[in-house]
């Protein structure tokens, strides 16, 4: 008797699983409370923005997710692994870019990428570097010293480093800072295409609200180490009765009284 397959629309029946799960994360530096029990989840293949003014807790959250900062308490799971106990199981499958973390300046772009390709255990480093150089237009300065590059060029190299290992989880700290609008737009398109193709999960910390509206499916809004609101960009814009995320951001950052009612801590 032939086996009959029951056709279940799993994509609809099953909710998209969360790849990043943050629960009750607390970080204290002595008397200073940097994070006050924040929780959020990022679904597979989506981009979530961490928004907030300076000192809201975005960098602290990203640093804890990357394992370079230890939380005071709380739990983090990435790709099903407990990041606080087994981060080295997950790190090969994720990556990170920030304009505030440099690469060795005296090494050429190619040398830097070769070193990181080996650190991430790439089998064919040369081919991957060539591929990224084409896609991110690094060809003109691949053999130039990283220290001689403009801020925009460095941002692209940093992005190339972050994509070397074809990460399943990508943490982006202002990925298009220092880029002119044209190159910034190309980079965003590239990241969107990469996500479509690889179902990569992205967490983005940025002050570029246009970028958020374009790239993000969800937003987590932070203020003073608390999650003060969350939702899809359109949802938040509607809820605050505003025209765009820039205005919503200003409402939250300037602590409009009626925004406080939304606090979810």
């Amino acid at each position, binding site marked *: 008797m032939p086996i009959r397959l029951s056709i279940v629309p799993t994509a609809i029946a099953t909710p998209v699983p969360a790849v990043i799960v943050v629960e009750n994360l607390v970080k204290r530096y002595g008397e200073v409370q940097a994070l006050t029990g924040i929780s959020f989840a990022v679904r597979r293949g989506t981009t979530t923005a961490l928004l907030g003014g300076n000192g809201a807790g975005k960098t602290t959250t990203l640093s804890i997710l990357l394992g370079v900062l230890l939380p005071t308490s709380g739990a983090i799971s990435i790709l099903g692994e407990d990041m606080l106990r087994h981060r080295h199981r997950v790190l090969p499958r994720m990556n990170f870019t920030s304009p505030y*973390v*440099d690469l060795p300046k005296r090494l050429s772009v190619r040398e830097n990428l070769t070193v*990181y390709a080996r650190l991430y255990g790439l089998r064919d480093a040369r081919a991957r570097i060539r591929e990224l150089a084409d896609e991110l237009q690094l060809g003109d300065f691949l053999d130039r010293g990283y220290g001689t590059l403009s801020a925009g060029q460095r941002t692209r190299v940093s992005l190339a480093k972050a994509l070397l290992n074809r990460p399943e989880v990508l943490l982006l700290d202002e990925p298009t800072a220092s880029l002119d609008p044209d190159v910034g737009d190309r980079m965003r398109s590239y990241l969107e295409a990469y996500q479509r193709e690889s179902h990569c999960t992205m967490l983005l910390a940025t002050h570029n609200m246009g970028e958020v509206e374009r790239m993000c499916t969800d937003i987590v809004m932070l203020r003073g180490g608390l999650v003060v609101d969350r939702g899809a960009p359109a949802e938040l814009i509607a809820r605050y009765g505003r025209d765009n995320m820039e205005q919503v951001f200003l409402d939250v950052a300037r602590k409009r009284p009626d925004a406080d009612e939304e606090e979810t801590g």
Partner: protein
Amino acid sequence: MNPAASLRRIGALVLRHMYLLRKSWPRVISLAYYPTVTMIMWAFITVYLAPTNNVLSDAPGFFIGAVLLWDILFRGQLGVSLSFFEEMYSRNLGNLFVSPLRPWELIAGQLVMSVIRTVIGVGGAALVAWLLFRYSIFSMGFPLLAFFVNLIVLGWAIGLAVSGMVLRWGLGAEELAWAAIFLLAPVSGVYYPISVLPDWLQWIAHAVPASHVFEGMREVLLRHTFSFDLFFTALGLNVLYMIAGVSVYLLAIRHARERGMLLQMGE
């Protein structure tokens, strides 16, 4: 844990430093420059004193051997510390710590670079010693390997502790890298036996692995015997020093992870 993956990551770190050395000849030359100049100075002191000094007439390589061995310790320590400082100068620590590189692999990479820098530095000086003064450090034979191991391990222990302190207190503490080793020089008995020190200082000297190495060197050069007692005493002490050095380093990394310093570290 996958040993092949670990080796690949250690290799990546070494490659990063080799790229740097390869394109900076002044760096390579400076590795050998100081040991060579110091060796030449002690060689001429030997030439001057040998006719009137029994020790030097019996063992003309006494000072040259001592200065070359001392440089194994010094270069070994600098090799570890400077590799770490390079990552701080270039604000690269953040990228390294979010990569799959584990702390012990970072340490292993620093140790390999220490051996490479020491071989370049001391090797260059040893070659000049042979060319100019017909003194070969290899004339010590097998004991040279024993001395090398003990001195470079002590250099690693101090280098790791210095790296940890710089990670803890920032590049302002960088001077430690140059100063730390000289603190040990008077009690290491590089050019004189420990017995010439005051009693209380001898106690301190006996706790320093280098003093047993240099006592051992004098045994080899003057009495042509290798003292296993001195070798194993130095080795035992080195195990303790290495445990202390690695602990200071790992504690500093832990502290940096608690304070969130790894993404901010730099010039």
